[in-house]
């Protein structure tokens, strides 16, 4: 079986040039997307670079199995929110277009354009186009205008990933979106795009994906596509999408209520997915190659106007009961948040915090540019969202910078009210609750507090499998490693073993942590939980109480480093391990910083 090549499209916005680089050897070592990006960031972004400076890079990554085990595009960059290694992940057919254009190792964007531009890639034709007429437009209009324009020009439907006003205004947790409802939200990729004057990326490929053995790939894929296990999985995903995930979390004390202050409260029951589904369900939509189809958009026509969008845990968690509202109100807040282009989880945590501070008189109506920010007030929340995106007013401008920078504006007394880890809002999967183990996984994350920090995720996001597509594959093939192995081998023509896959996973995890360590992260100073995790217990609907004890936390953390993350007790990558995995080049950089175990 012949092997395929992995092509990376490298675009320099400063020089307005592009070229295709063969990165096959690197993909063998790291797989694609988040794995490959570690190397690109390590080599191309000098230590200490300002994430919003032209020196930062943005890797819009796909990997060997994009379009087969779900369709994910993973954006990697140095995060403007934390300053450490950042990544955002987005679904939708955008990734598949890159695959079909045969940029199967993604697109790397460097430099900064002199004026607003968008990147146009139609198979081999790559152009940097003027986007001054799109600049300032909200997301829906941006995407629609651009898609429509390109359709008229070429007769082809492009995949468009774009930013909204928040990204243009460098809000540190701004996101990028495709098909309006699919957002690459975490850690501020939208702000990185904005800092590069890059309004959008439009890709269309008609060459078809590069596979070493189409017959083999189809045989594997058809096994998945026609399996009864897949059929069973899709029943749940396609009916509720992710509307159904919030209520159980709220009942079991896993989701913030009133800025994570309250134990169970009846407002939680207003996150009623059955009611939402019966009233507003539009249709089910999915990503290419996925039979799970977990996107269930809604449409609501009310006297206040027409609303449409999608409710998912990631764009509601943080808001919702955390600002004392239910789904009815979220149907109006969620699309606005999408239009402006900000990470819902971060934004929700910040808005809830602002409501808390307003109640306690730490910020005033004057700070908020005239908004009376009361709990549960949708109109006030929407007004605040807009002001944050445009950085209008003292408090909204501070909130646009994230928690850690806002402390300097709001003062010391604002700190206790903040529910954040590593400067990232942590309203969802409450860190006090030990059910999902987020207390430890958030606290020990070198990316910032979010799901997707562990070893396992570094494999999934290097191969680009989707977390909601892969369960059916795992049921059929036994483990995520095996799924990645069989599909990667069929796609690339390689002969990877399970041990190779395990080694790649660990290599990617260590390397990702090393990037953060180089940029100032250190477990000794950073791996902690907010004060309220230790002194404000919560009780769930069924009477179970959760809180952390300091000594217990320190003990559990050490155990977590060693057993789950394969690190030393101090949370550092072991020197021997780095050498064995071929990462010895990081040692001279990190050792003087005290960042090697």
């Amino acid at each position, binding site marked *: 079986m012949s092997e395929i090549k992995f092509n990376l499209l490298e675009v320099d916005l400063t020089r307005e040039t592009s070229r295709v680089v063969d990165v096959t050897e690197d993909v063998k070592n790291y797989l694609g997307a988040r794995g490959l990006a570690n190397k690109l960031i390590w080599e191309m972004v000098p230590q200490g670079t300002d994430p919003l400076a032209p020196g930062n890079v943005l890797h819009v990554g796909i990997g060997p199995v994009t379009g087969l085990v779900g369709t994910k595009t993973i954006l990697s960059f140095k995060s403007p929110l934390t300053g450490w290694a950042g990544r955002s992940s987005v679904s939708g057919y955008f990734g598949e277009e890159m695959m079909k254009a045969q940029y199967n190792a993604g697109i790397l964007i460097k430099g900064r354009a002199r004026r607003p531009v968008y990147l146009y890639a139609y198979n081999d034709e790559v152009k940097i186009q003027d986007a001054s007429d799109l600049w300032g437009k909200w997301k829906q209009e941006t995407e629609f205008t651009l898609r429509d324009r390109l359709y008229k020009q070429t007769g082809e439907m492009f995949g468009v990933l774009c930013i909204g006003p928040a990204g243009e205004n460098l809000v540190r947790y701004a996101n990028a979106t495709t098909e309006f409802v699919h957002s690459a939200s975490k850690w501020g990729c939208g702000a990185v795009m904005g800092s590069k004057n890059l309004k959008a990326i439009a890709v269309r490929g008609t060459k078809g994906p590069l596979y070493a053995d189409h017959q083999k790939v189809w045989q594997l894929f058809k*096994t998945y596509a026609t399996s009864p296990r897949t059929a069973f999985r899709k029943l749940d995903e396609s009916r509720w999408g992710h509307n159904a995930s919030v209520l159980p979390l709220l009942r079991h004390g896993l989701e913030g209520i009133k800025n994570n202050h309250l134990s169970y409260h009846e407002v939680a029951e207003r996150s009623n997915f059955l009611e939402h589904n019966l009233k507003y369900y539009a249709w089910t939509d999915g990503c290419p190659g996925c039979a799970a189809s977990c*996107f269930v958009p809604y449409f609501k026509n009310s006297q206040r106007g027409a609303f449409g969008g999608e409710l998912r845990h990631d764009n509601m968690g943080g808001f919702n009961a955390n600002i004392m509202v239910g789904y009815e109100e979220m149907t109006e807040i969620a699309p606005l948040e999408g239009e402006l282009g900000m990470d819902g989880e971060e934004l929700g945590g910040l808005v809830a915090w602002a409501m808390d501070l307003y109640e306690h008189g730490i910020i005033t109506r004057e700070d908020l540019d005239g908004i009376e920010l009361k709990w549960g007030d949708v109109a006030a929340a929407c007004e605040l969202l807009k002001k944050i995106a445009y950085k209008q007013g003292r408090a909204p401008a501070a909130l646009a910078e994230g928690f850690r920078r806002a402390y300097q504006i709001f003062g010391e007394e604002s700190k206790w009210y903040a529910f954040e880890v590593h400067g990232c809002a942590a309203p969802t999967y409450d860190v006090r609750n030990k059910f999902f183990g987020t207390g430890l996984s958030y606290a020990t994350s070198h990316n910032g507090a979010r799901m997707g920090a562990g070893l396992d995720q570094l494999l999934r996001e290097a191969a680009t499998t989707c977390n909601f597509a892969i369960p059916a594959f795992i049921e059929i093939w036994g483990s995520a490693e095996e799924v990645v192995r069989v599909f990667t081998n069929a796609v690339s023509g390689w002969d990877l073993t399970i041990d190779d896959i395990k080694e790649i996973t660990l290599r990617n995890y260590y390397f990702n942590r090393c990037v953060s360590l180089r940029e100032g992260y250190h477990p000794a100073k950073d791996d902690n939980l907010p004060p309220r995790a230790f002194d404000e217990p919560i009780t769930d609907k069924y009477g179970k109480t959760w809180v952390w004890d300091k000594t217990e936390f320190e003990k559990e953390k050490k155990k977590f480093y060693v057993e789950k993350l394969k690190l030393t007790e101090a949370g550092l990558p072991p020197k021997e391990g780095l050498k064995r995995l071929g990462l010895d080049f990081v040692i001279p950089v990190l050792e003087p910083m005290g960042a090697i175990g």
Partner: protein
Amino acid sequence: MKQEEKAAQSVEPSAKGWGKENYPFPEGAAYIECDELKCVGCGICQMACSMHHFGVINKELSRIQVRKYLLPLPKAVQVTCVQCPPQERECEKSCPLNPPAVYFDTSSLHMVIDQERCLGKKCLICQRACSAKAIRIYSSVSPKPFVCDLCDTDNKGKREPQCVNVCPYGALAFKAVVRYGLPLSDILRLHADEKAELIARRLYPLTKEKMGNPGW
């Protein structure tokens, strides 16, 4: 047992499909019907199509098309040839050749494009005549166009549409052209853009420019 071997054993042999292949076979002329509201846009039908006809996975080489629209909610819309009844067969009527190079084969019961006689790229009148643009041309493969042959590529009369079998949402069905005693399928012959425009009306007054901002 090694994990690898265990995993290999757990792989089940793939089924033929989701069950549609067990439905009664339609009598006489039949076509693939798309249920647009059920389609989720996974494109597995396209993968099956290109695999069957060209031996590669490439949705661009598929005779069935799935397009993603923003209405403004994302919505996938499918289009394929509906094997029009004779009176409504605009492609066949428009072919400049005599007899036409694009025709309905009455023995194998599906549309056929005579790859040898067809004038190909320089003509394509049939493609313009079809309001659904169901006749496809793939420059990278051939200068001659293709049309849905119900997976009877050798024209032996063995119709077995692969896309219908793999569609996980039952959005595709293999149905008889004649319904209630009369031919009907051509009414479904609509371009994806037009289908999308109609579906978009369900969301009125939501506009393509604004998703959820009533102005406060």
